């Protein structure tokens, strides 16, 4: 199994009483709540944690992109990736990912990834995402065209990486007389492309198709859903006429390890519950803007919501551990849960979120060390 030490870089000094007066920690949360002196310390701590992940033997470190939110302080994840390249020697640097539809010029994304790939001498993993629904409020981009723009930007970027330039790109949303990348990517034909997703069936089929075979990562979902989505990918691969390998299947989850199950729950509680209830929670109008999903899947989502009643209450660590959305416990418990997922799906990429919500530097470090010493060695191939 391959291990990614993934980070969201939340703004932990957030005034939670003030946060609760707003509908979300995204887009509408006043940035007067951000203190740059504290924020700068956060960046330093988080870069130290990711750098330490190399020492601990992780295969990759991972960052991602979110805008106008205390949930994550990386609107420009490639800046963090660049800093990590300078601080590390061998570990892969995974940007999981860049939100392709949000930019007016996807060539910039192709260029930045190519630069990072050169700077790191081929250590970059390029994640491509649509961006979650809130990003369409943050950027003003019309969610109706999100999927079209994603696919078109993907074609443009991969073309820019692989086709001799200059060439002309003629699309619906993007049109360029000259596409001619300087520098070209270091890796041949280009950095690996991974697709993190909440699990839309359209995305799964698209990623699995034989001309792409992109590793697909299911993020922050209940155990049962993760297994279902990864197996959907396997089924799609079979329909395309091949068997998906474990290296095409990834699971991203918050993980916390301590000596005992009980201690793990106690230590992780504030971090996990703040992640889901304070940082991630969004009203559906923000999370699912019209057009972001297909109309049919949105109709289904709304019917499920109606059946469940109005807004869900606060999530507890017990709920989240029970559903398998988070993996928390003794080394043995954590190993077993990961092994169980491997038995169910054959997945081989574990994207572990070892700092989450308000979890302190000290507990994060202990968590990382225990995960690396007591869990990883048992699961490495």
């Amino acid at each position, binding site marked *: 199994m391959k291990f990614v030490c993934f980070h969201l870089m939340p703004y932990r000094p957030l005034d939670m009483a003030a946060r609760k007066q707003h509908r979300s920690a995204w887009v509408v949360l006043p940035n007067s709540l951000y203190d740059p002196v504290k924020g700068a310390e956060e960046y330093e701590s988080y870069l130290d944690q990711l750098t330490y992940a190399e020492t601990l033997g992780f295969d990759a470190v991972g960052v991602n992109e979110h805008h106008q939110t205390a949930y994550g302080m990386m609107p420009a994840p490639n800046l963090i990736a660049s800093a990590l390249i300078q601080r590390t020697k061998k570990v892969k640097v995974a940007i999981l990912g860049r939100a392709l539809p949000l930019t007016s010029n996807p060539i910039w994304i192709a260029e930045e990834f190519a630069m990072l790939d050169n700077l790191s001498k081929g250590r970059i993993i390029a994640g491509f995402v649509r961006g979650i629904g809130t990003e369409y409020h943050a950027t003003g981009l*019309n969610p109706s065209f999100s999927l079209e723009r994603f696919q078109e930007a993907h074609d443009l970027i991969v073309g820019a990486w692989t086709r001799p330039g200059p060439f002309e790109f003629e699309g619906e949303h993007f049109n360029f007389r000259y596409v001619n990348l300087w520098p070209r990517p270091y890796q041949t034909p280009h950095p690996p492309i991974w697709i993190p997703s909440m699990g839309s069936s359209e995305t799964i089929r698209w990623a699995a198709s034989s001309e792409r075979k992109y590793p697909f990562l299911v993020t922050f979902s209940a155990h049962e859903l993760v297994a279902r989505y990864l197996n959907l990918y396997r089924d799609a691969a079979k329909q395309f006429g091949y068997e998906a390998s474990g290296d095409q299947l990834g699971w991203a989850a918050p993980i916390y390890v301590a000596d005992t199950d009980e201690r793990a729950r106690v230590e992780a509680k504030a971090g996990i519950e703040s992640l889901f209830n304070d940082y991630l929670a969004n009203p559906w109008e923000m999370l699912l803007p019209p057009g972001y999903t297909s*109309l049919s899947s949105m109709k289904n989502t709304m019917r499920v919501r109606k059946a469940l009643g109005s807004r869900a209450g606060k999530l507890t660590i017990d709920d989240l551990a029970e559903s398998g959305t988070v993996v928390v416990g003794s080394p043995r418990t954590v190993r077993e849960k990961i092994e169980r997922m491997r038995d169910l799906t054959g997945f081989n990429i574990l994207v572990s979120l070892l700092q989450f919500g308000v979890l302190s530097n000290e507990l994060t470090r202990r968590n990382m060390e225990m995960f690396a010493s007591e869990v990883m060695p048992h699961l490495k191939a």
Partner: protein
Amino acid sequence: MAPREQQHQVGEISVRMLRAGEGEPLLFLHGAGGWPGWIPFFDKLAAHHEVLVPEHPGFGTLEKAAAIRDIADMAMYYLDFLDGLGADRVHLVGNSLGGWIAAELAVRNCARLQSLCLISPAGVRVKGVPMGDNFIWSPEEAARNLFHDQAFADRMLAITPTDEEADRLLTNRFMAARLGWQPRWFDPALERWLHRITVPTLVLWGENDKFLPSAYAEPWRERVPDVRVETIVACGHLPHVEKADVTAEKILAFLDGRRA
């Protein structure tokens, strides 16, 4: 008055249309919330006019609306629509999104219009006066912000839509986003060409509109050549619903005045 429901076909696109009354034809274009069905406001108008109320392509069902990707497509669609109507010229009335479509149509070609009536139209932005964010509002906020008289909001919120109605509302929301998400509810070019509206124009605005504030009437007053602007007191964004009688009377008086 019982309207007739028929299908109106333009090219590949067929839409529902209600029709009642006799007299010079009056075409009503609905707002982003969707096709209103037959409401008391139309009865008032239908006492003097043949009233036509079509559903926009993409509303109710997204089928066959793939070619309508933005407001310009919608304006061109309605020019085709008017060509196929069999009437020489119509009085065109639109609310909110429907007013925006009507104005986009009129700056392109007024040949099939006798007059234009815009009820709190979208389409033109006034800098420094923020509009409401209907895409971030919860259903409750939306109802509260659309009406001045909260009794209307209470009635709206008391209704639990059936699955079928909920699907239609969701479809309307999808199409509204396609047309109005970015730039939000306006077309930067439209204001530059408002002088091309060559028919008599009435602009009505609810004085307490929390979605498009009544200050948004100003550019229309300044730039449309033959325009009358009137405010409807104690009224939100949907005057034809909240103040149906007053709104219909103002429109009829305006149309009468043009004939005199």
